[in-house]
């Protein structure tokens, strides 16, 4: 170690830091970008293969039985439903696992919070990054669907934004789970008791109108249901006023989960 003299004046001296600073968000996200550059091939591979399997399985399975589901061509129904599941899994899981690992095992968050970054910025940046990724990768099932004969529609250009909004809520939900779970094994409860039913009871692969009334009500408060509806309407050129309601639910879910994530993880990061 060389004892180079340090200039006593600071780099930032006169600079005042504020709340939710873009520079802090960019700093936290720059780490995510570095990691992503290393793993993007695996991420891209799985996000393409998964919808392909769904489309093949459901398409070849149901497709031969049913030409249409809920007045929509089977391929259209399954491809748009798969967008929602892709968004759900690519946001809730990283929200849970990345947060827990970086917080508890790697202590990355501890290191960052000693720098001029606060809990609100840290969590916002992490959730923002996950949801940006979820928005982009949410397009993969549509591209695969197009390869299987799905008709492209200009409304599909809205899908990344819908994926982003939905992903934001579910990534923040994942952070909340990471904050309250005592161990990483407890994630299994959430995966099997919350996420799996959520992804099935959302009009992803079969319409919720086929469900008994009680489940149908539950489906309607499931944010993923609103994501599915929005994606389907946008992709199939059927946007209407009801979609404003779906968007409002997703927005509300995102904001509420974001604040709970900051509150819950914040009180554990700062003791």
């Amino acid at each position, binding site marked *: *170690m*060389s*004892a*180079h*003299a*340090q*200039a*006593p*004046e*600071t*780099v*930032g*001296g006169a*600079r*005042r*830091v504020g709340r939710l600073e873009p*520079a*802090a968000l*960019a*700093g*936290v996200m*720059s*780490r995510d970008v*570095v*990691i992503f550059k*290393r793993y993007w091939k695996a991420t891209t591979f799985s996000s393409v293969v998964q919808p392909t399997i769904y489309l093949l399985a459901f398409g070849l399975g149901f497709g031969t039985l049913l030409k249409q589901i809920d007045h929509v061509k089977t391929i259209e129904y399954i491809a748009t439903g798969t967008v929602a599941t892709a968004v759900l899994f690519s946001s809730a899981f990283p929200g849970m696992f990345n947060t827990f690992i970086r917080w508890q095992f*790697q*202590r*990355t968050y*501890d*290191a*960052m*919070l*000693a*720098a*001029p*970054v*606060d809990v609100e910025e840290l969590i916002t940046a992490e959730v923002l990054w996950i949801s940006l990724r979820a928005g982009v990768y949410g397009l993969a099932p549509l591209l695969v669907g197009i390869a299987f004969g799905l008709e492209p529609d200009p409304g599909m250009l809205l899908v990344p934004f819908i994926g982003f909004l939905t992903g934001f809520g579910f990534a923040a939900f994942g952070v909340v789970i990471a904050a309250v779970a005592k161990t990483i094994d407890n994630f299994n409860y959430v995966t099997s008791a919350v996420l799996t039913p959520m992804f099935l009871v959302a009009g992803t692969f079969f319409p919720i109108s086929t469900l008994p009334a009680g489940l149908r009500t539950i489906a309607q408060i499931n944010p993923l249901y609103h994501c599915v509806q929005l994606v389907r309407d946008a992709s199939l050129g059927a946007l209407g006023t009801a979609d404003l309601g779906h968007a409002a639910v997703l927005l509300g879910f995102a904001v509420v989960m974001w604040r709970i994530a900051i509150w819950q993880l914040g009180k554990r*990061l*700062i*003791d």
Partner: protein
Amino acid sequence: MDWKTDAAGTATAAISLRGVVKRYGPIVAVNGLDLEVPPGICFGLLGPNGAGKSTTMRMLTAQALADEGTIRVLGYELPRESKQSRLEMGVVPQLDNLDVELTCRQILTVFARLYRVPRAERTLAVERALQLANLLPRADTIVRELSGGMRRRLLVGRGLIHKPRLVLLDEPTVGLDPQVRQELWSLIDGLRASGVTVLMSTHYIEEAERLADVVAVMSQGKIVAQGTPPELVLAHAGEQVLEVYGPPAQLAEASEIVARNGWQSRRSGPALAIMRAETLDGEAPQGVRRPANLEDAFVALTGEEIE
């Protein structure tokens, strides 16, 4: 022992804690701590395991919130203005929290951003930190593949990437080989020489003695004594120590004499060390006199042996 009078009026303290209490459930980790670190010095915090040194450090970055008392860092009031103070200070934690998946250069680049080093200066800041940490040849090695000492050095480089004017070092030389420890010592010396304030916690008496202008001895969450190393030695161990060697029976006899006279002593390896040997009268047992050192003072103050 009064550096406060020297510094009074010349500048505001770099760090100031008043009546700080921090509890973890039933444990009182910090118990009414008063601490004043004047700017531009190297301040050593010496204390046994569990004394509350790391908890104090975490409160200075507002990663732990005090239950009672007030804390000011670089003139900013904590926790309200903590982000501002963190911008101007660097931290080297006791526990390694490096990103194992990243290379040295990547970690330093991320932290240069977090510390708001302007884009145009970032590459240079990273190079400088790599050089400081002696890691230029390993710049693109992934942290997982570094040795413990290299990781420690990278932690130091990371904490200095933005040329902070205050540096918190929590046991900076733990696990370093003697040569690297020497190098880190000269780095800390260099920091202080250039006007950076250093607050360093340590277990190593020698480290405190060599580096710190002022040493505070911490025990059970409070400062029990404070001063320059020679002042502390003189005040708590006297000028000389008498070391009595011999078989257990002889030592027991010596202990009895010590107790009868109300002298202060401690076991030091195989010997019995009697403080303030210069004041002992004719009844003193046979032994070897040596100058008192900071370790004697530390043990006298905390009642604990140190490695």
